[in-house]
């Protein structure tokens, strides 16, 4: 049994939209996914029935909001097969999650220690570490990439040494769609005693990761990329690591006792959740996971793979079209250019035809530098896209190229 796409599309009110007089075809899913009415409804229901500040409230609304928020955390725990719900920290998104870890690690490492990043990363998994290295004298090493957009795993093995304390790599590259061999990356790092952070922002919408099986130390997700709301995400951390890391932000909820002389910190997960969190966001994130699981990740993955195969085939028929990222292990992302045409030009004309793609460096400049291009056109597919929409994309690219040549 495949997916009932028509039924699924009816869940997404925005897909009915007209853009520049044309029916919207939304292919910017890697930037942010669209939101089904089930998730929108969970937001409305929150504000209409239980909105209240959580934790320590004796009144019913506060209690119900707390229970709903903690139920959201529990859904995340279950989805990623995490052992303890206190290993799930709610954050405002992947960027926040990574900064939390980078900042904390700064105080655990010493000058001369090494940490390893990959050449395939989003800026959010580069800059926080650069900032940390600048403060601490820790050395940043880079796993290079190959022409097919994959990590050079031999070089990775060579980079690992007794000095290596941490490796941080994305599960899936946002710019190219490459699925990295994180099982290998994790096990090799663990062999020499280094910890591993996997940035799961791009993987989460397509792959249901079993974090215990992966044995990963940290994993990060943004809700807005997986049918959830903006402004919320999670950091998974193994309990032992979360205990070792110092708190990141100070404030309400994250303390046990405060005096002006001394403050003691609260237990996990509160230690890392200072201030009023995105309560509604945590609840709606849970609703988004419910939605995705009800559809089923296996079905999503196989349907998206069909879309990818079809679109790749059709696009490659266009003269001068080059696809960046040719790994066999890819999510449904196609990053491409046509001849010397600037990606911005094609993106602008596609938009006039109602077709939404992203153009530019996709917050991954090192990848663009590697290919020596200013950017790419990126079409990223989701389970609510259709083959007809892909036909429109291919036709639109052809038309644009004609106009621009």
């Amino acid at each position, binding site marked *: 049994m495949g997916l009932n796409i028509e039924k699924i599309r009816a869940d997404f009110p925005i897909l009915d939209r007209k853009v520049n007089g044309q029916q919207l075809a939304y292919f910017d899913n890697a930037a942010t996914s669209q939101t089904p009415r089930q998730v929108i409804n969970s937001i409305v229901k929150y504000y209409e029935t239980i909105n209240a500040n959580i934790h*320590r*409230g*004796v009144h019913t609304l506060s*209690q119900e909001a707390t229970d709903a928020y*903690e139920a959201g955390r529990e859904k995340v725990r279950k989805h990623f097969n995490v052992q303890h719900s206190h290993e799930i920290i709610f954050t405002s998104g992947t960027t926040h999650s990574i900064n939390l870890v980078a900042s904390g690690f700064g105080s655990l490492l010493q000058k001369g220690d090494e940490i390893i990043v990959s050449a395939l990363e989003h800026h959010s998994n580069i800059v926080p570490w650069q900032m940390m290295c600048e403060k601490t004298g820790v050395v940043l090493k880079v796993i290079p990439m190959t022409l097919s957009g994959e990590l050079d795993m031999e070089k990775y093995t060579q980079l690992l040494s007794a000095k290596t304390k941490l490796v941080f790599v994305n599960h899936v590259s946002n710019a190219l769609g490459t699925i990295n061999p994180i099982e290998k990356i994790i096990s090799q790092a663990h062999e020499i005693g280094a910890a591993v952070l996997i940035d799961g922002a791009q993987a989460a919408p397509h792959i249901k990761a079993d974090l215990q099986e992966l044995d990963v130390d940290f994993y990060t997700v943004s809700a807005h990329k997986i049918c959830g709301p903006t402004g919320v995400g999670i950091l998974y951390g193994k309990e032992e690591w979360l205990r070792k890391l110092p708190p990141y932000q100070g404030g309400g909820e994250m303390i046990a006792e405060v005096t002006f002389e001394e403050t003691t910190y609260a*237990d996990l997960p509160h230690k890392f959740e200072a201030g009023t969190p995105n309560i509604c966001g945590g609840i709606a994130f849970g609703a988004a996971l419910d939605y995705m699981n009800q559809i089923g990740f296996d079905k999503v993955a196989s349907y998206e793979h069909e879309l990818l195969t079809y679109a790749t085939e059709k696009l490659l028929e266009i003269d001068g079209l080059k696809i960046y990222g040719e790994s066999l292990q890819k999510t449904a992302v196609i990053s491409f250019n046509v001849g010397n045409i600037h990606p911005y030009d094609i993106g602008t004309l596609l938009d006039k035809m109602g077709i939404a793609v992203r153009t530019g460096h996709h917050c991954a400049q090192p990848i663009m530098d590697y290919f020596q291009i200013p950017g790419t056109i990126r079409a990223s597919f989701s389970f609510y896209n259709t083959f007809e929409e892909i036909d429109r994309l291919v036709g639109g690219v052809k038309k644009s190229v004609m106009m621009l040549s």
Partner: protein
Amino acid sequence: MSIQEIQNEIVEEFSLFDDWMQRYEYMIELGKSLPLIEDQYKMDENIIKGCQSRVWVHAELNDDKIVFTADSDAIITKGIIAILIRAFSHQHPKDILDANTDFIDEIGLKEHLSPTRANGLVSMIKQLKMYAIAYQTQLN
């Protein structure tokens, strides 16, 4: 009496009341009759976390049975722990471990059964069972 019998008794008592006010008044009454913890045991190690009010619990083994004493600075909390202690005190560790706590729901205190509840009823139950585990190990 077995734990189950005591729980039944408590459920029966509470079933006499028509509304929450009477139930709470009775609970407050029970709180006042709570077997109080000795001052020497009212120390930080015995405080139960997760409560907005402070709750201390102490446990002793007497003739292979656990005897609980407790106190709290809030009366309602005292009533809740009093009900728990009435059900679980003077019982074998194993029986305490085997017992369920559905009677809390049945006496109309369901709202306190959420793990995030500020009064920490769930933490109290956990704490009593922890003592039971500890003494059970000791007896084996």
